[in-house]
Structure formats: structure tokens, C-alpha cells
């Protein structure tokens, strides 16, 4: 199994940390992982994206032409990455702030209304965990118990009291993800 993922959105949405939690979860279950951020003079509110690869085998290129899954969290990222999903691949997006919805007919498309759902939770910072839940429902490449173990490893100890809230957010994500198109 090799899953090549791009996660893209605004800086501050938790794009990079979502990728880290996926990687830690992969390590917990004995897989190879790679996390490659776009780095540069980026800032809060600017665009941020990260390539994550989780595999049973040695990982080759950190730079890839086409992704198995694109997780898209703003319009700029939709414009940039919709075309990079492999035919038959998967696009998951939050429709919040999206003015042009995905148009491709040859990929699986799912929506997860994470921003709207996060507003109902204790803290809106769980936004990225709701998205992660949506992804894991569609692509259960890491087990839920390993996600919790991954969270413990990636969060500094002073935030460990937040783990139950995050766990709840991941579970909520699995419940609210909706199929838009299946090929």
C-alpha cells in the first residue's frame, strides 16, 4: 500500500499539523512516512500545503506529479490541485469559502463541512481533525487507535488534555463526510 496525499489550504488551518498526525499514525503502525511542506516566505492567511506519503515500502520521490488523494481547504488550492488528482483518485474538500466546486468527472469527490462543524465544537481549532476524520472514513489507511497514539506523539504534553476533544472531532468528521461523486 502506498498513499500519496496533498493537503492544501490557508496557513493557520492546521494543514501542516494534520499531515504530521497522519505521519505519526503511520509510524505507530510500522509504516514508512514522508512529510514535505511547501516552504517559503509564508504567513498566516497565505497558502500552505504539504505532501504526505504513507507506504508499506521504502518511499521514493517526495515530489510527485499526481496524487491519490487531494484534501482541499480553500479556493486557491482547488484551482491549483484539482488537476493533480490521479484519474480514479479522490478529492475531499470543505465547501466553506469555495466559489468554484470541483468539475472533474473522472475522480471520486467528497465534501466535509468541517468549518461549519468546528464552529459547533468546544474549539474551532479542531477544524483539521474533522477533515482528517472525513479522510479516514474514505481512506482508512491508518487505524483510529493509531491516530490517537499519533496525536499523543505529535502534540506537546501541555496540550494532552486536548486529546479527547480532538478524538471527538475526528469521529465527527467520519460521520459528516458526504459523497458527491463516485467513479
Amino acid at each position, binding site marked *: 500500500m502506498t498513499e500519496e496525499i496533498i493537503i492544501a489550504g490557508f496557513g493557520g488551518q492546521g494543514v501542516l499539523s494534520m499531515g504530521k498526525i497522519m*505521519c505519526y499514525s503511520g509510524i505507530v503502525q510500522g509504516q514508512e*512516512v*514522508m512529510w514535505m511542506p511547501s*516552504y517559503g*516566505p509564508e504567513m498566516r492567511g497565505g497558502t500552505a500545503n504539504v505532501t504526505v506519503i504513507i507506504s508499506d515500502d521504502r518511499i*521514493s*520521490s517526495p*515530489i510527485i*506529479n499526481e496524487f491519490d488523494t487531494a484534501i482541499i481547504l480553500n479556493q486557491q488550492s482547488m484551482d491549483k490541485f484539482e488537476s493533480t488528482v490521479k484519474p480514479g483518485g479522490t478529492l475531499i474538500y470543505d465547501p466553506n469559502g469555495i466559489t468554484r466546486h470541483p468539475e472533474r468527472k473522472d475522480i471520486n469527490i467528497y465534501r466535509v463541512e468541517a468549518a461549519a462543524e468546528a464552529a459547533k465544537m468546544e474549539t474551532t481549532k479542531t477544524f483539521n481533525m474533522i477533515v482528517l476524520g472525513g479522510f479516514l472514513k474514505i481512506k482508512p489507511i491508518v487505524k483510529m487507535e493509531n491516530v490517537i497514539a499519533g496525536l499523543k506523539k505529535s502534540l506537546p504534553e501541555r496540550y494532552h488534555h486536548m486529546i479527547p476533544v480532538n478524538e471527538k472531532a475526528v469521529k465527527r468528521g467520519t460521520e459528516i463526510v458526504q459523497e458527491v461523486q463516485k467513479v
Partner: protein
Amino acid sequence: MKELRLMKGNEAIAEAAIRAGVDGYFGYPITPQSEVLEYLMLEKPEERTGMVVLQAESEVAAINMVYGGAGAGKMVMTSSSSPGISLKQEGITYLAGAELPCMILNVVRGGPGLGTIQPAQSDYFQAVKGGGHGDYRLIVLAPASVQEMYDFVELSFDLAFKYRNPALILSDGAIGQMMEKVEIGEQKARLTDAQVKERCPWATTGKDDNRERNIITSLDLDPNQQEIFNEKLQAKYKVIEENEVRFEEIQTEDAEYLFVAYGTSSRICQKSIQLAREKGIKVGLFRPITLFPFPVERLKELSKKVKGILSVEMSAGQMVEDVKLAVECKVPVEHYGRMGGIIPTPGEVVEALEQKFL
């Protein structure tokens, strides 16, 4: 089971340095390698092992602090990215001229000049052909993963002390910034003063009655003596070339074409091999791990059974010259690369292979 962590390449270098028992790090921040200094500052290695971590006033100051520490037989290192490594060149040639062991990390970014902060491999010539003035060589290691960033710290110090020669880790912004799984090694104790004296009888460790004064210098005004010294250096480099060549081969057994690539480019080529083989093109990868000494012999052998070699680098074509020298022009050698901080995609590399050879 060993401890596994998710780390950036730059963080892996820093943790490996603490664990290898390094005595001192002297640096100055520059993207894309500032995490080395940041990680070391956060980890407080002065509390863990007594290691000194110092942000110098400039790159020039940092490399000269390395000169001082290395002269005393200590395990010392510095890190920077391309423009900063250029600033360090005077110090590096002095280190080579005084035969001082140390480790220098270059997390390469696009140039020339200030260039860009994105990854490149355009410092190959600078790393393997000199960089500073005079006939000298550095031992140059090219990691292609975060694990190798970690592992090559100790390896580079072992080689540096074995040969009394500066070692350079030639990385790039991609490997510095990416995170991968790293197996963390045991904590090694820093050497005691007595151990330093035993390992480095040449070092300025304080003269006692049992020996002559040790002098650390790269200056000898007598040309006859200077030539003898240069011959000694060249003989040392020859021994290094005979004994320290390291490389990796991927799917070369049945290969009709060969990629030659190091670092990030070699990772891209691994994916390109998969894409090319799906199209029926039998291609393999030869990855030099040591860039000096360059793996000449094995590459020459491999060249006899392939129809063409594509050297893939994030540069205008630098290593390709060494590839051509190694295979003595007996097989066509071409270059493919992107510049200025652009990383080629695996698909582009396959297209280049098809355009140049098929």
C-alpha cells in the same frame, strides 16, 4: 526496539550531533537550515552532554570557531546554506591546509548570489572541487533521506578524524525541510581530555614535558617544504579514494539505461524508474553516496552494460562532468536538471530520458 521519531532533516542533524558526543556547534541562521541551530538551542545540549552551541556574529566567525575547536582536537561542526557556505570558504581551505577534522553541513539552496531559498544542487563543484583556494579536497557525503542525515553525522566525524580532514555533508533544502521516520541511536559520551589527547596527538591540548610543541598552521614559506606537504595531502586523498567510496544501486541488474543522481534527485529518479518501467523502459539508478571520493570504478563497470546514462541534478550540470570522466566517454552521457530552486518531477525526468535516448 529503537526509538522512532518523525523529524525534519535539519532536526535529525542536530539530534545526531548531540547523540554522537559532538563538543561544539557554531552557526549563523539562514534558510533553509535554520532548524539546526533552533533545535540545538531548544534542546539545551549544554545540559544533556555539555555540548557548546553558539550563534556566532557571522558565518566567517563560526567557521573560525570551528578552526579553533578542531585545533584542540574537539569534535566541532558548523552548518549553513549556500551563500553562507561561500562565506566560510576561507576558513574551510585553512582547515584543509591545517589538516583539521570537523563537519560542515551545506543545506543547498538555489544560486548564484543570494538566489532563492528553495532547494538546489548547484554547489556540487564548490563541495567536491575545492571551493576555497589551493589543492585540497573535502570528504563529501550526500544524504538522500532524513535517516541518512542522522546517520551521516557520526560517519562524517569518523572519517574526518580517521584522515584528519574536514568532512562536508552536502544536503539540500528538500531533505532539510522534509520529515521522515528516524531511528534514533544511543547517546554517546563526549570524549574526556585524556581520550582527546590519545586520539589527536597533534592537537593543541596543552604541552606537557613528554612532547614537543604542537603547531596548527597552514603556512610554510619554504616552497620545498610546502611541496612536500602538498604531496602528503595528495597521498592522503588517494588513500581516501581507495578506501572510502560509498554508493547505492537500484534496479541496475537488468538496466539498459542508467540514472546517476544523488540526494533529492536520486529520490525523484527512484519514482522515475517505476514510471519508465511501466512503459517498458529498463532503467536503473546509480546513487553516489560519497561525492568525494566519487565512485569511479563501479560506474565505469556499469557503463559497459548500458546504452546511455542520464545524470539528473538540480543544477545546470555539474556532477555530469565527473560521470563523463568516470565512463571515459565510452557511452553517451547526458544531463537533465532544473535550476533556481525548481525540483524536477519524476515524469519530467522520464520525458528527458525518452527525448535524449529513445
